[in-house]
Structure formats: structure tokens, C-alpha cells
């Protein structure tokens, strides 16, 4: 067969056979042997003491004590429990390995291998049994049983899979429109700082300033943490003030801003990290997760990184007292892309 031709086995140096056994110090020198025994016994003997120490630390070292040593600052209880427990476990291991290395017989022995596969006789015998079994089952004559069983078993997967479909709501068009395609922003919702919920006055913002903000109506969700988290995950915004002379504002977005104060979604269009690194001079905003970079001076278009869509801009204006308010919800869904997303309305570089 070709496999014989394909590999050649030659031994230019004949196999000298298994190396001769070399005796260890402990095999020939009684003193070394006793020393090895003492070494192993010392390892094992120390373990109960350390275990006892562990128990003592557990009960008697208060949680408030701290260890300060060479740059390490940690709770004393933690350090001592770990040190005593760890060394105790380690000594069991070192003792056992030393026992095997120094004292146990170390004569190498050789064992025969057998081919992994069965020999032909066993194969024939097994096949024979299989055939006998098949014949006894009457399957060859009663084919309908086999065929229906082949359909019956896989069909059981259907109920199993269907029960999993209730793991979450189905994102049909209606559900999408009510969840991932809208935020709690709406006309007249005030922009407030995201921790203290203070309204923001346009005149208070300096050029170059960036404010992390939230919709004022997020306060209404205080009683429902889950709804608040879901709302925050979409409605988080950043407000920046730039010198209107240094930025591009397309005609369609002339009235989306107030004297160079622009408002963008804080949620990256790549995989949804909150974007937070602001380069004041270039008007670039960088996502710390995967470094997508958006130009806030140019309607949020992508200038670098793996994000493929502009950062959605929130149209804002001021109320009668000069506080910033939203003019509407975002005009496109915020956050990462999804299959059903109609991305034709996103702002592209050069749009008007």
C-alpha cells in the first residue's frame, strides 16, 4: 500500500535499549536516606501545625487589623489565612513529590502498547452481534417502524426549543418601536446633570466644556431600578459647547443647537459603551472601549475606529428661562446596530 512507501523508518543508530538505572544518593547512603525521610516527614509534620494556626487566625484575628509590609497593604486576617492555608497545602504536595523522587523505587519499567482499534476477529464478532440484534428487532422487515422513529425523535426537539422562545419578549416591529427604537427624550424634556439632576442654563456653559447629562424625566423612574437602567442605557447624553465659527453645522441641523451648544448620544454606535474621552481642541470624542472616534464639530461623524455610524444628535433649544430642553426624541435609534435597523436616515459626512 502507498502508506508503506510514504514513510520510511530507519535507525542509523541502533536502539541501545532503556538506560541503565542510576542509583540515587538515598539508595546507597543510609545517612542520605534518613535525611530524605526526615525531610518528607518534616513537610507532613508541619501541616497540622499550620492548619491549627489557620483556625486560630480565623477565630482570633479581628477583621479590622491590617498588614503593612513592603508595599503590601491588606487585611491581616486575609493574609494570615492565605499564608498558613497556602503553605500547609503546598507542604503536603512538596512532601509527597519528594517522597516519590527520593525514596520510592525509581526503576523505569516498560509496558506493551496495544493498537487502539479492535482486531479483525473482535470487529467481526461485534458486527455479527449487531446484525443478530438488527434481525431480532425485525427492523429490516418492518421498515415503517424505523422510519417513523427517525421522525419521532427529532420532532421532540421542537417542543424543547419552543419552550425557550419565552425567554424574552419578541422584538417584532411594535416591540422594537417601543423599546430599542425610542428613548425617554421628548419635546420639552429638560437636560439635567446626570448625578444631581440639575437643569442646565445655556449661558452657564463655557466654550470647550463637556457635560454628562440625562433627561429630567429619568427621575420618575427612581422607584423602578430596572426601567431606569434600561432608560439610562439609551438616553445618556453629552452636551458640548464649541465655538460656532470653528465647527460645521449642516443646514438641516441649524436649529438643533444653541449658540454652539450641541447635544449627542453618549452611547457608542459600535457596541454601546458610554463614550467619554473628549479632545477639546479637535472636537473629537473617543470611546474608551474600542477607540471609535467621532467628530462632534461635524455632526458626530466617525473619524476613526470600528464604529460605522455617526453619533446620533439630539435636537435641543432653550426654554423661556434659558434652560436647555430637548426639541424631540432622537431622530434615529441610538446605540449599537441591529439587523432590522433602517440606517438610511443616519447623518453621513457631507449631508445637509
Amino acid at each position, binding site marked *: *500500500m*502507498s502508506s508503506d*512507501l*510514504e514513510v520510511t523508518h530507519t*535507525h*542509523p*543508530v541502533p*536502539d*541501545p*535499549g*532503556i538506560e541503565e538505572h542510576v542509583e540515587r544518593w538515598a539508595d546507597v547512603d543510609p545517612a542520605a536516606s534518613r535525611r530524605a525521610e526526615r525531610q518528607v516527614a518534616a513537610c507532613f509534620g508541619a501541616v497540622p501545625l499550620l492548619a491549627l494556626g489557620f483556625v486560630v487566625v*480565623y477565630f482570633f484575628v479581628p*477583621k479590622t487589623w491590617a498588614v503593612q509590609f513592603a508595599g503590601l497593604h491588606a487585611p491581616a486576617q*486575609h493574609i494570615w*489565612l*492565605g*499564608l498558613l*492555608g*497556602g503553605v*500547609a497545602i*503546598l507542604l*503536603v*504536595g512538596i512532601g*509527597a*513529590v519528594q*517522597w*516519590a*523522587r527520593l525514596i*520510592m523505587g*525509581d526503576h523505569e*519499567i*516498560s*509496558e*506493551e*502498547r496495544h493498537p487502539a482499534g479492535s482486531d479483525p476477529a473482535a470487529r467481526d464478532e461485534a458486527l455479527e452481534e449487531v446484525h443478530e440484534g438488527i434481525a431480532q428487532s425485525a427492523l429490516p422487515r418492518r421498515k415503517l417502524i424505523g422510519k417513523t422513529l427517525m421522525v419521532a425523535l427529532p420532532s421532540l426537539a421542537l417542543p424543547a426549543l419552543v419552550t425557550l422562545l419565552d*425567554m*424574552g419578549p*419578541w*422584538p417584532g416591529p411594535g416591540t422594537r418601536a417601543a*423599546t*430599542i427604537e425610542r428613548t425617554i427624550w421628548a419635546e420639552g424634556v429638560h437636560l439635567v446633570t446626570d448625578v444631581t439632576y440639575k437643569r442646565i442654563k445655556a449661558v452657564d456653559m463655557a466654550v470647550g466644556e463637556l457635560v454628562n447629562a440625562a433627561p429630567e424625566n429619568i427621575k420618575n423612574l427612581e422607584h423602578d*431600578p*430596572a426601567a431606569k437602567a434600561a432608560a439610562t*442605557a439609551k438616553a445618556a447624553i453629552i452636551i458640548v459647547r464649541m465655538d460656532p465659527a470653528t465647527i460645521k453645522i449642516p443646514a438641516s441641523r441649524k436649529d438643533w443647537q444653541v449658540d454652539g451648544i450641541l447635544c449627542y448620544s453618549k452611547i457608542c454606535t459600535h*457596541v*454601546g*459603551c*458610554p463614550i467619554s474621552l473628549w479632545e477639546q481642541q479637535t472636537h473629537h470624542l473617543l470611546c*474608551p*472601549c474600542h*477607540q471609535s472616534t467621532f467628530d462632534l464639530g461635524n455632526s458626530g461623524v466617525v473619524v*476613526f*475606529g*470600528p464604529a*460605522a455610524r455617526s453619533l446620533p444628535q439630539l435636537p435641543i433649544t432653550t426654554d423661556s428661562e434659558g434652560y436647555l430642553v430637548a426639541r424631540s426624541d432622537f431622530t434615529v435609534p441610538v446605540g449599537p*446596530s*441591529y439587523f*432590522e435597523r*433602517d440606517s*438610511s436616515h443616519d447623518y453621513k459626512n457631507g449631508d445637509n
Partner: protein
Amino acid sequence: MAKPTTVSADSEALASSRPPGRRPLAGLGGPVGWLDDRVGLAKLSRHNLRKVFPDHWSFLLGEIALYSFIILLLTGVFLTIWFKPSMSEVEYMGTYQLLRGVPMSEAYESTLALSFDVRGGLLVRQVHHWAANLFIAAATVHMLRIFFTGAFRKPREVNWLIGIGLMSTALVEGFAGYSLPDDLLSGTGLRFVDGLIRSIPVIGTWAEFLVFGGEFPGTIIVPRLYMVHILLVPGLLLALIGAHLALVVYHKHTQYPGPGRTETNVVGYPLFPVYMAKAGGFFFIVFGVSVLMGTFLSINPVWKFGPYTPNQVTAGSQPDWYMGFVEGAIRIFPPLESHWGHTTWSWQIFLPGVGMLGLLFGALAAYPFIEAWITGDKAEHHLLDRPRNAATRTSFGVAGITWYAMFWIAGGNDILANEFGLSLNAITWFMRFAVFIAPVIAFMVTRRICTSLQRHDAEKVLHGVETGVIVRTPDGGYYEDHMPIPVDEAFTLTQHPEYPALQPTAAVDENGVAVPARVTRRRARVRDWFFRPNIAKPTADEVTEARSHGGAEHEIATHASDASDEQKAVSQH
């Protein structure tokens, strides 16, 4: 027939009628004999107790992975006693002053309680996390050892596939684990996974809504991941590990080539008592080291990150190291997104995220079969290859490591930019090319190095090793004395099989009958390329010739003339 009414218990006749060896453990008496009577203990242990395992440090890598897994089970059980997999909001009132009064999920709160209020809790938590890192690291290096030594060849392909299954499952397990504490870092990781799931074409949104129970973040992902982390995946891992070890026992361990080692034997020490002590002891060593790491090396200090909120993130957010290559791919992939009709296809997330994992594990799973097709080798292999002798495979391996490393480095492009004061954009662009170019360079360089090492082996066999003794000849020349290597080493360096170039055979023979196992032109070419870096090993004649000079004196004489030739060559210049 008449029967005796009574039989004396110690009747000699009765004793001799007992089949010899019926109760082999009776001598041990007590519980062991009792158990043998019921489950046949002796029969079970007869061939397995003294099973031979070969000795080599690289065989310990898989053991480290196994032991880390056991440590994970032990420490994990302790953690489940305290951890609350709930996203319900509570106000923190524990002992960590800086977070008092902060609203957070019960999952995060119970993680803080574990770290500050449960005695030994921080220790066990950190041991668990270190053991997880150790588990995946050891499994990775173990897999590389299997790859580079060719231990995946027949009959072990199935076990290689089980190993790939273990590896990919372990990544999922690790990810699910570090997502549980619901701190700012793990929440950021979940946010990424949400985006990743969404990016799957056609079914992405549906998958997202089913996995998260609606919109991100929802309230159910932590309990679900908890189930995945402590039941589903560990169960799978346990089953796969069981199968993995059962096959190791069945096939018997591979061994490195050496004197007396053949394809039909296994040379080493018996399981009982040597490996029970060594392997059992090694478990305690791995455990002890993990505990000491958990004691002194802080890992995942969740209290520093704060609770997760979807509008916050820390700069330098990164996954655990074993997810770094996926992270890197996500970072450097160009922004390719298709907007067809009313649909969006996020290739820039789907391909590097889902595609990378598929590519890596697919390529690993396919490799044994590809190599077997190229070499046409259908024999069982129990002797390991020295990596240099399988030059092309070794080069593939090094190229693969390089490929992985480039993505891994790209996963820290922000850290690199920050630490070395480089341009983030320049690093990203560099890595976009490096992931393609660096593996090719690594492949070519490794092939050269392997060939050089083979030449070096041949030289050692034929000319011995340098002794450091400089000899001056009467005519003024200098040379270094060489010493023949021991015959054991010479055998080890020359025992490997060779793969001669094949001639393509016709599809049909002269009678028009199809040729079985024919060598196609393409396979002959690929095989020739695969084995091209290999040099012919010294022949028996060459070895005899070199060795028959009978030791040092003649070696010197031969080399003296070589050396003086070189001297002449030099003096002519």
C-alpha cells in the same frame, strides 16, 4: 444421594475446593474484601494500578489545567454559599466605607460582602479567579505542547477534538464568571456582548431579546449567567474532562523518543505508588500556589470599580486576558457595515467577534486531518515528534501563536499608546497590517530555524560536540577538540521517520482499474512542500564511519586535517 449433615468449617477438603484467587483481597480483610465481594475491586485495579506513565515536565501542563479545575470546583462551591445572583437594587450598608449608601445590585453587594465581611471570603474569591486564569493558561500551553509534538496524530484525533471543545467551553465559562459580580467592568463586558449578539445577521435582535429577557441590561442576565456558570458549563466541562482522561488512559500516554522507547511500548513509572504520589502531590502544589497567589496578588478588586451603570465606563476597560485576542480583533477591524434596504449588517462586529472564535477553533479542529491528508501517514503514533523534525507543522504553530499575539496586543492598543507615548491611531493601523504580515514572517523564520536545528543534530551525531579544548598542531594550526555524543543521545537524534518525495500516480492503472489510495499531483506537491525543510538524516553508514574511528584520537586527526584546510583557505586571502 446422601449428604453429610454437617461440615466442619475448617475442613481441609472444603478449603482446597475453593477456587484459588476467588477472594484475592481476603488477605487485606475487612472493608476492602467486603467491597471486592460486591464490586470486584481487584479485577478493576489489576491492570490499572501499575499502569505505566512516562515522565516529562511538559506532561505536567495538562495536569495543572486539571488541578486548577478541581480548585475551581472547590472554591466555587464556597462562593455560591454567599453570592446572590440577583440584579435587584439594594443600598449598600456593608463595611466598605467608600460605597456606603450607594444603590447597587444584590450581586455586587454580595460580592462586596464576600470580600469584606465573610472570613476567608476575599481569599477564596481571589483563589477562584487566579485558578480560572491558571486553568485557561495551562490548558492553552498544554494544547500547544500537544500541537508541537504531534500528539494529536492517530489514534488521538478524537481526544484533540475533545480538547478543542474543552478550550472553547472554558472561554465561555470564564466570561460568564467574570460577568457575575455586576461591577462597572463586568457590566461593560456585558454591554459589549449585547452589541456582539445584536450584530449577528438576521437573528441578532431576537437573540438579544431572548438572552437578556428584553432590552439591555434588564434584570435577568446575571441569574441566567449564574446558571450557565455554575451548572450548565461546569457540567459540560466535567463530562468532557472525563472523556479526555478516559481516552488518555485507554491510549496510554505518548512518550518522547529515546533509548528503549518504541511505538509499541511505554516506558516510565507505575501509577501506584509513584504517580499517585507525584501527581497527587502536584495537585497540592498547584493548589498551594493558587492559594498563595490569592493571598498576595490582588485580582479583580471590584470595590474599586463601583457598581455598574450603563452611562459610565472606565478608561482602559479590558476583558480577562484570554478574551484579549477577540477584543483586539474588534478594535482593529475597519468599520464595515452594510445598509441594505431597511436592514443593517454589522460585519465589523460579527466577523471579528463571532467569526474569529469560529476561525481559531475551526482551524485547530481541522489541523490533524489536514496534516494527515498531506503526509498520507496512516500509522498510529505514540512517539512524539521533536518540533524541529516537523518543521512545517512547527512553523504553522509559531505563525498561529504570532497571529494570536498580534490580535492580543491590538486588544491593548490604548494601554500601549498610553504607556509608550505612541499614537493610538498609528498603533491601530500598524496592527491592521501586522496581523497578516507577522505570521508569514514567523512562518518563514521558523522553517529556517528548524532546518538549522536539524543540521545541528546531524552534525552532533557525526562530529560530536565541542569540548572547549583548543589543540595546537605541530605545524602551527589550531582546532577545537570534538567529543562523540553518547549513544543514547545519538539514537534519540536519529530515530525519527522520514518522508520521501512521492511521484503522483495515475488515477487508473494500465488495465483501466481505479488505483486505491492514489497520490494525486496536488497532494504530491503539497507533501513535497510540507517536508521540504527536512534534511536527510545521517545514514547508518555515515554514522558507522564517523563512530568507527574509535574515539577521540582519530576524531582529532580528522578534524586536524579539516582545520588545517580551513587555515590554508584563510591564509590564501
